[in-house]
């Protein structure tokens, strides 16, 4: 194939101010991390509440959580993003709508939309893992706690959740990596995260393969580091004698 390779492209001027293409990748990586971490905080908090709700006795609370999961898991992420970015602002009261569209910078409104979108989407997935984590515990744990006079809240707080969260660290790691990868949808509403900067570099420089190769490497190294971090966390919180903790 008749391709003009130029790996030095990242150090060349973009023609915008005094920036080189590498600056774009660095700033893109910053946005990717900012989107994913904020989304993850929402996902973990909301997902844990929903996961607990699905395991509670009674009918109403589990039904609400189940509906949430079905709704957010079965609508494509991109469709959800467009709903949050294009549709929801138009349904807000006018002052809030104007604030969102014009009061804050376009990057900020795109950021808010994508963080909410990714957070709520991933919450549905975290919810399922928290639920399975709780259900994987021996039934006796719950019964024993209740027999000792713990309230339901205390049972979850002191007996069930500390064990369940330790059990689900590996699948949670996978969701944690997913939110970093999924954050690339932000490029479609104009947030200049890593993928958007990559596409922009490819367009401006016409060195498409170099741009995407660098982006691949950055995503790979980022995700490998996150995996390493989560493995460290798992080891750190391990309790000898417990499920998966007897090594």
């Amino acid at each position, binding site marked *: 194939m008749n391709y003009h390779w130029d790996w030095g492209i990242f150090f060349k001027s973009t023609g*915008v101010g005094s920036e080189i293409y590498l600056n774009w990748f660095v700033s893109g990586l910053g946005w990717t991390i900012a989107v994913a971490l904020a989304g993850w905080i929402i996902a973990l908090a909301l997902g844990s509440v929903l996961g607990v709700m699905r395991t509670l006795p009674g009918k109403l609370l589990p039904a609400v959580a189940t509906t949430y999961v079905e709704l957010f898991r079965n609508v494509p992420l991109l469709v959800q993003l467009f709903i949050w970015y294009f549709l929801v602002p138009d349904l807000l009261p006018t002052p809030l709508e104007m604030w969102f569209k014009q009061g804050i910078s376009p990057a900020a409104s795109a950021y808010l939309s994508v963080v909410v979108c990714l957070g709520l989407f991933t919450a549905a997935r975290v919810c399922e893992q928290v639920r399975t984590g709780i259900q994987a515990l021996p039934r006796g744990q719950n019964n024993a706690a209740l027999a000792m006079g713990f309230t339901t809240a205390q049972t979850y707080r002191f007996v069930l959740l500390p064990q369940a969260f330790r059990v689900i660290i590996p699948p949670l790691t996978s969701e944690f990596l997913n939110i970093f990868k999924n954050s690339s949808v932000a490029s479609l509403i*104009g947030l200049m995260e890593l993928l958007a900067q990559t596409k*922009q570099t490819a367009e401006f420089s016409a060195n498409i393969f170099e741009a995407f190769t660098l982006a691949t490497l950055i995503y790979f190294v980022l995700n490998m580091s996150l995996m390493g971090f989560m493995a460290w966390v798992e080891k750190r919180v391990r309790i000898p004698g417990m499920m998966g903790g007897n090594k």
Partner: protein
Amino acid sequence: MKLCTRLICAATLAALASTPAFAAELTGTLKKIKDSGVIVLGNRDASIPFSYYDNNQKPVGYSVDLANKVAEAVKKELKMPNLQVKYNLVTSQTRIPLVQNGTVDLECGSTTNNAERQKQVAFSVGIFEIGTRLLTAKTSGVKDFADLKGKNVVTTAGTTSERLLKAMNADKQMGMNIISAKDHGESFLMLESGRALAFMMDDALLYGEMAKAKNPANWVVTGKPQSFEIYGCMLRKDDAAFKKIVDDAIKATYKSGEVNKLYSKWFTSPVPPKGLNLNFPMSDVVKELIAKPTDKAAE
């Protein structure tokens, strides 16, 4: 002496070998087309009115018509009346690699001929020339780029307008918030929904978006062009034989005046899919390009 005769001998043999086989000595794209019996044209899905889909999902447009002129010329050159013409959809990200790797033989859409792309592909003589301007509401009070200080301005990601706008913002410290939308339709949505005060893009595409608006009379294309860009068809580099056929076919439509018919068909008459009229009269730069075709980048 002996050396001399040997040289002459070799030269004669070479000449003998090549002359009768001339027709078969095709190289590059022409050889590929001859061997496969197919010419593949790259098309776009939403570059109105250059290259896009009509109601029957068939690629149509000004650039598509010109590409078909080239296909006709290739048929004649290769004496293949049954040459099959196939279309392959490209996006702004895939168009260069697909031309380079041989998936697409000729891409006529709305691709700007510039120095960066010339490193990767060759361009035909220009098929259109645009100026980068602004689309805004008639009531917005925006007359030129200077009126955009501190305002939200939208442009389409990966376009020259994006680069110009960012450079202008940095150089003149205008404090604009620049939104990079993913395609022209979304850029216009940002403008229409009030997220941006103006939309900077190639004037021809702005007229296309305006024609699609709910009420075209509410919008106006304004501002001094910030750059001129020549659109060309992309083909593989270092393929002089194919490039000559492409260039000659395009120049022939310029010389015969047929291009004027094509122009009015796509820019000043109702076009599919909705029968909208762009009302975009031929600019002086396009007239000049037709009078003096060039395969160089603008400026």
